[in-house]
């Protein structure tokens, strides 16, 4: 049998909780700061227009910028993809009234000025501010509903004491991915929302598998403390956790590297999600569940005392 993790592995994860909690807290806070200050929202959410253009001839960015400037457009241009592709992304800043007109004019002028350079307008995205606001709202709603649905499902299938752990872990994962997006200047687009939901699904998957074992432990080894049961459950599932993360990473990293520009950012988020999600199942969901359990015990103890006093 080939093994990555030894069969009798027994790591006391609970001993790391203080350190990991501090690390996680710092990362989450930093990420939230990044999210609210530095996040680069894509055209989907910000509203505006983007034109993706490709030339057959060797057109350089400065020339393109010069032409756009001479024609009197307020357009940001950047090169995308490999340098040999002569492919550019133009961001048109315009207000709602003339967004359409300006975008059409830019396309028209480029088609005319670069006619002999094999110009090809590959993609045009125009999103009015209203649509942008709408997309922002529904993206947020989708994530919120996913969290609520997962919380309820875990509560029903396991016990509601497990729900907060899973939710805090998801919140942790999503905010760290967003933080990394903010600090690396990766655009936040509709695809990012899709990737985040996939990560939510993946990460909770990880958590559920540990919980499943904890439940088994609760039944078999009821004399152990919950903390020990959780440690055992994580150890027992550790090889599965690492193998699955590994195979998913094989896919997401190859897609990130070779899948083309259009899905690069998507798989960047997925790859981060697999890493953070694996970490959070062990070091976030578990300790929060322990804390919830303690809190519940303390609270029900209080309630019992209260009842006693009444009687």
């Amino acid at each position, binding site marked *: 049998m*080939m093994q990555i993790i030894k*069969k009798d592995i027994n790591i006391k994860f609970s001993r790391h909780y203080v350190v990991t909690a501090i690390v996680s807290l710092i990362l989450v806070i930093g990420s939230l700061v990044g999210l609210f200050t530095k996040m680069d929202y894509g055209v989907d959410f910000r509203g505006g227009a983007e034109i993706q253009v490709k030339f057959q001839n060797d057109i350089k960015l400065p020339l393109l910028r010069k032409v756009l400037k001479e024609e009197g457009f307020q357009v940001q241009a950047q090169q995308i993809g490999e340098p040999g592709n002569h492919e550019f992304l133009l961001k048109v800043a315009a207000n709602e*009234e*003339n967004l*359409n*007109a300006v975008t059409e004019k830019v396309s028209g002028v480029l088609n005319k000025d670069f006619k002999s350079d094999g110009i*090809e*307008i*590959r*993609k*045009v*995205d*125009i*999103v*009015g501010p*209203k*649509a942008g606001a709408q*997309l922002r709202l*529904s993206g947020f*709603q*989708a994530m919120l*509903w*996913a969290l609520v*649905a997962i919380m309820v*499902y*875990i509560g029903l299938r396991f016990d509601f004491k497990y729900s907060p752990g899973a939710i805090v872990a998801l919140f942790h994962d999503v905010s760290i991915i967003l933080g990394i997006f903010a600090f690396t200047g990766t655009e936040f687009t*509709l*695809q990012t*929302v*899709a990737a985040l*939901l*996939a990560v939510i*699904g*993946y990460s*909770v*998957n990880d958590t*559920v*598998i540990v919980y*499943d074992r904890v439940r088994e432990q609760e039944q078999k080894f009821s004399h152990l403390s919950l903390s020990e049961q959780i440690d055992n459950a994580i150890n027992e599932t550790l*090889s*599965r956790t690492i193998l*699955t993360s*590994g*195979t*998913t*990473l*094989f*896919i*997401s*990293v*190859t*897609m990130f*590297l*070779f*899948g*083309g520009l*259009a*899905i690069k950012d*998507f*798989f960047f988020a997925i790859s981060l999600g697999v890493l953070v999600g694996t970490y959070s199942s062990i070091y976030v969901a578990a300790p929060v569940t322990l804390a919830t359990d303690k809190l519940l015990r303390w609270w029900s103890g209080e309630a019992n005392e209260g009842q006693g006093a009444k009687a």
Partner: protein
Amino acid sequence: MKRSWWYRFTFLIIIGLISAMMIIPTAMNFTAESNFPVKSKITLGLDLQGGLYMVLGIDFNKVYEDEVKSYARKVAYILNDQGIKSEIGSLDKTIVTDPTHSIVIGDPANIEKAKEEIKKFFPSIIRMTVENGGTLFYGLTKVQKTTIEEQALTKSIEVIRNRIDEFGVTEPEIVSQGSNRIVIQLPGVKDIERAKSLIGKTAKLEFKMVNDQVSLASMNSWVTKAKESGIEYKTGMRFSAYLRTLNDFLTKEKLLPKDHEMAFEKTVSKATNELTQMIPYVVEAGTKLSGDQLQDARVQIDQQKNEPYVSLEFKASGAKIFEELTGENVGRRMAVILDGNVYSAPSIREKIGGGRAQITLGAGGFNKMMKEARDLALVLRAGALPVQLNFEEQRTVGPSLGADSIKKARYASLIGAGLVFLFILIYYKISGAIAMVTLILNIVFVLACLVGFEATLTLPGIAGIALTIGMAVDANIIIYERIREEVRKGLSFYKAVETGFAHAFWTIIDANITTALAGLCLLNFGTGPIRGFAVTLLIGIVSTVYSSYFVGKLLFEFYMNKTEGQDLSI
């Protein structure tokens, strides 16, 4: 082998064969004429085959305004008819979502009676809001607003569909989203600019009488006065918006004669094709005859000038109105107005019977005019949009980009899947081979479902399939690690496999349901390509549970049977 095994095996073979049938046309790139029994192929999304995706929004506040305004005349007419002297007041847009209009009652003593009459004649349409001395304010009822919204939306979709059908796009998709949005998807459309202009044109055709009493000088002075108050037309602005604010301003300033409005004829220079002049007109408000009375609209060519024009033919009722209108107004000018722009304003020399009229076009070369005439005739035939639609979102993708994306994504998926296969083969040996078979089946099932459900494969959809492979391995790993554990505990191979599968079942279900919950939320949120991701993710989950768990179990039972429980390579 047990009998139940054979049942399950037969089921797998049937499912497998059906799936293979489904994907063969796509895989072999069969044409529609081939003799193969299955014709349908995987539908590629807009992002992969190129095309146009649009979200159009309806600004109902403006629709309410028009509706409220249009009742003012009717209300005043009815009240006067009932002996209550009253006059049309003005529009109040303080609450933009609920505009109101006032009616000035001549004798304040009559106010109660007037309210009763209005209630009697316009039940469930108009509701009274406030009164101020002799002035009554009314707005629309909630019921009426809902009716307006529903009608506008349904009618708009119908009109757009008519136009697109005439334009000729295969498999267009035109659906409403919420109560005030229309989503249009035109896959593979080539002439995107033309498609856009065809869809966006309101095509509201009206015939209105010109008031020649107002001099050009005074009209020009009004426009200047409006300009001084900041009402000015700038390029890129929507002309109808300018016209609306201008007319509101002129009415408020009491410059326009009662029940009149301004309209413009835009003249375009033949040489530079740029807007050179806007000729102002004062026309009677209220449309005598409109585009809904049209029977047909065709392009014809004026032989003398060698210029195309659009000839109009009215329905019988429209022809009668046209005849009366021209008969009553001999010597005056009648403006032909399309979407608020005056196209021409010919003088009526005599009563015109036969129900025919024509629209002459601006300028430009013959080809340009011809194109304009063709599109104009098309939109007039297809009918006018009941409301102005705003482009809220527009995404166009060229065909080459999609082809590039498919190529790259497929290449990367193959590398990724290859790595995963290699890994599980090395790590789990023969069991790994079983896992590999279940994974390949899984992909076949997902693709077959896409064909079967006529779902659309988008780029994020391909991402979803790739991700499914990654996550499907998880189910295999959960089972195999469990079996290994049981073997270590000293169970026989046969027993270990059985216990492993039994224990792993709920874990796999739980893990997949939580992912499915996220997928469902995404499906609900979904716009275009993103929906495609949710769809493949959800199909992938169902297919994973079947292939990794049930097919995996089937194959393991066979394996155990072959080795008689003596050997297990895992």
